[in-house]
């Protein structure tokens, strides 16, 4: 009951604030870039009182005006939630909440890696690849076929590397064949063309895979069996490792394949950062993403960079697939939801922002875990999983289309 009242308050005054405050600011010739978001947050947190003050004094809006009332809104929501469902595990059991958060973070790292590929493509080519999920699917499929069917006994990590190369090649090939014409003026509406042609690619890859490998779920055994380990000791251990699980503080259990996947993802992130910031090609890529013309003048061939970026982007998706095929069962349509999640992440983080993709991945991971963990009705909790991310997407696009770390639109 309290919860619904609180939600009504938050949404109602949030909308009022989001609509009203920009108008007030515009009328007074003030900077309105943050007004919608700040208005929504202040409205949601403090209702008419805060809004009246804001409209009267019209202070300069910086990030504080978003973060503080934002936090207050979350606090109101949580309080109302706790008051309505005092027996909910998210209220009564801190270990449970912690487990959910840690689980969300672990998965979020991998989501982030995948979204990083998408954001890399966006920052260089200026397009959103709708075929991103299929690269993720292919990455996993390649590892499965390499280690289980074609070369049994091949070390999974070697297969991960090969699968990365293959997804890179597919991405680069597609870029050369279908996306390059965009830059040479052969295509009338580049933006729309890019959406559609990647869409077509997604269709093509998914159904070709289905026709070739069928619908039976595939899975690779976990890459590493961890040694048994307990720190400091078996009793009251802080960290306890068994072949299949990693246990923190006795309470938080993370399956080991996920830890492996997250560690692979973190290593890859490091490699990617090194590549982008320390190598000549990486610097050239970043230069192209900042200013195409200027980069071209300094002798960087933007076409090559495009191919490289699309291949790399596909490869990152493929790598996250390759590291998750030991966690989830793999079918040809496995990429659809993963792709949708990547869209959410890059919008949340800011399109084209690398740190944004990583942070966005963590946030989405945690939100999904908490959503599944905390929504009171057990029937709805999991059924709405795909919607949690989409809700973030829609809200971000409405309130702050540039995302957390985005450049101006």
């Amino acid at each position, binding site marked *: 009951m309290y919860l619904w009242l609180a939600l009504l308050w938050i949404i109602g005054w949030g909308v009022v604030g989001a609509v009203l405050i920009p108008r007030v600011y515009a009328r007074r010739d003030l900077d309105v870039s943050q007004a919608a978001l700040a208005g929504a947050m202040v409205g949601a947190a403090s209702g008419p009182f805060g809004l009246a003050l804001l409209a009267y004094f019209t202070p300069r809006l910086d990030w504080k005006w978003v973060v503080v009332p934002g936090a207050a809104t979350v606090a109101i929501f949580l309080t109302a939630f706790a008051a309505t469902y005092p027996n909910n*595990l998210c209220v009564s059991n801190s270990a449970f909440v912690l*487990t959910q958060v840690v689980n969300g973070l672990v998965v979020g790292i991998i989501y982030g890696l995948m979204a990083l590929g998408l954001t890399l493509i966006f920052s260089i080519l200026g397009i959103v690849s709708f075929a991103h999920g299929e690269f993720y699917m292919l990455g996993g499929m390649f590892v499965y076929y390499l280690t289980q069917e074609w070369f049994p006994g091949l070390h999974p990590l070697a297969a991960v590397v090969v699968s990365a190369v293959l997804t890179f090649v597919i991405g680069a090939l597609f870029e050369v064949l279908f996306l390059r014409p965009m830059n040479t003026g052969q295509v009338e509406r580049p933006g729309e063309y890019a959406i559609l042609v990647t869409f077509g690619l997604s269709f093509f890859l998914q159904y070709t895979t289905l026709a070739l490998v069928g619908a039976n779920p595939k899975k690779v055994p976990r890459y590493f069996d961890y040694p048994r380990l307990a720190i400091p000791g078996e009793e009251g251990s802080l960290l306890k490792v068994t072949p299949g699980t990693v246990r923190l503080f006795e309470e938080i259990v993370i399956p080991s394949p996920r830890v492996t996947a997250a560690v692979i993802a973190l290593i890859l992130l490091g490699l990617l950062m090194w590549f982008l910031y320390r190598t000549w090609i990486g610097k050239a890529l970043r230069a192209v993403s900042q200013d195409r013309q200027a980069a071209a003048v300094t002798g960087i061939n933007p076409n090559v960079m495009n191919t490289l970026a699309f291949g790399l982007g596909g490869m990152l998706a493929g790598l996250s697939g390759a590291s998750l095929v030991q966690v989830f069962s793999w079918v040809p349509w496995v990429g*659809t*939801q993963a792709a949708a999640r990547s869209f959410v992440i890059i919008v949340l983080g800011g399109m084209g922002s690398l740190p944004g993709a990583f942070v966005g991945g963590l946030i989405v991971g945690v939100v999904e875990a908490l959503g*599944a*963990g905390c929504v009171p009705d057990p029937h709805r909790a*999991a059924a709405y999983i795909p919607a949690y991310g989409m809700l973030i997407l829609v809200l971000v696009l409405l309130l702050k289309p540039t995302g957390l770390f985005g450049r101006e639109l």
Partner: protein
Amino acid sequence: MKRVLWSVLLIVAILVAMVPMAVAAPARQGDAGFDYIVVKDDWLSKLALKYLGDVFAYPAIAYYTNQKAAEDPSYAKITDYDLIEIGWKIYIPSPEEAQAYFATRAQTLGVTEGETIKIGALAPLSAPGSVTGGQAMKAAFEIALEEINEAGGVLGKPVELILVDTEGLPERGTAAMERLITQEKVVGVVGEYHSAVGLTAKEVAHKYGIPIIFAETWNDNITASLYPEVFRIAPLSSEVANLDANFIQWLGAKKVVIMTENTGYGIPAAEQTTKKLEERGIEAVTFSADIGTQDFSGIIERIKAENPDLILVLLTGETSYNFEQQAAEAGIGPQDVMMICNQVADDSESFWKNVPDGNLCFYRKVGLPPVLWNEKTKAFAEKYMERTGKTGVESYAMEAYDSLWLMATAINNAGSTDPQAIIEALENIEYEGVLGTITFPYNSKNPPSEAGVEDKWWHQFPDFAAVFIQYQEPGQPSSEAPVVYPEKFQTAPPILP
């Protein structure tokens, strides 16, 4: 101009691609056979299309050429249909000769020349349907079809099976039924996996009065609408719930978590099971998830907090594997609490690959327990596993196989393809199948209302057997996994975690 040319070319290409599929090109009549020297870019099917008007008539060319080669060495000998060389002399038969060849060939297969009897089949073969299930059913249909035709077909004519993809979508189910009945003029329809599709398909069958035997649609309402055309050899959802509840009670569980999929199969099944469990004083909590959910970690923590003695998995396909393995990894797998895994676990190779930590899983298997397998079941299982490379036979494959055989038998019994006659034959049938002896005791002569049973038993195969099997060693093939319940079939006691 160039663009228009392109467009016209592409459209023409599409249309040309469609034409041979829509209408088979008529064979040219009256031409005599002749010799032909192979030139560049020839291949047999192309020649067959060109001279015989049928792209699939190439075996006839090979047959006659080889016959001539036996007498006259100047003719080439074709051992591989895909390999002909430039300069080879081959013999292109006249269309009559080609037809004669196919007629004799058909006879050697036990099929008489002439029109075929068409039976329609429904199965989900593309997403969002359960492609896994659909493909298994398809393989079973193929086996049954071959056997039927080898045994001489139906009413002395070969059976033609027209399998239509329903995509798991009710609206596609309607379209598929419309097509089968009005376009293909099938005399009966068999199959289907998804209950949601079954619910709409039965309406079309009823509208046109064509008999349909449902293979794997468990929803009670399918038979409960008392349509004379609708038969079912799959179990009833509510009865399965009853079986599950009995088993759970027998295992001694006090608190059960049901993890179900958010579909026309999962939701009612979970509701019915909950009801049956409550009648037995067992507490049940249901969690539901979208099909295709990958990450269950959030839900699994909640299930853990419920502290159940038993988890019943009503998810299907890869979603069930995802849940079972993740539960095992999080410490509430089958080795920690009792878990009734989904029946897809019966494909043990796939199961162990996807759920390596799934030892001690129970699963329900509809159909006869292996100890009671008849010769037919064993023969089918062998063929099926050979064809699909699987290590077990799913119940829906058995049901698909039986549904087609049942329809063929009924037509033979009826002695005609008249729908009314077939329906009557089905009502009186007593057919030995891989599922056991199939009968439909609650029919127009013995309606459920008079027999004192619920409407859902109408035209329902009542004796569907179901046993519970448990994997007791990691990697165990399902054929070796023991039956643990019911006790009269028990081959080993259950191992409780």
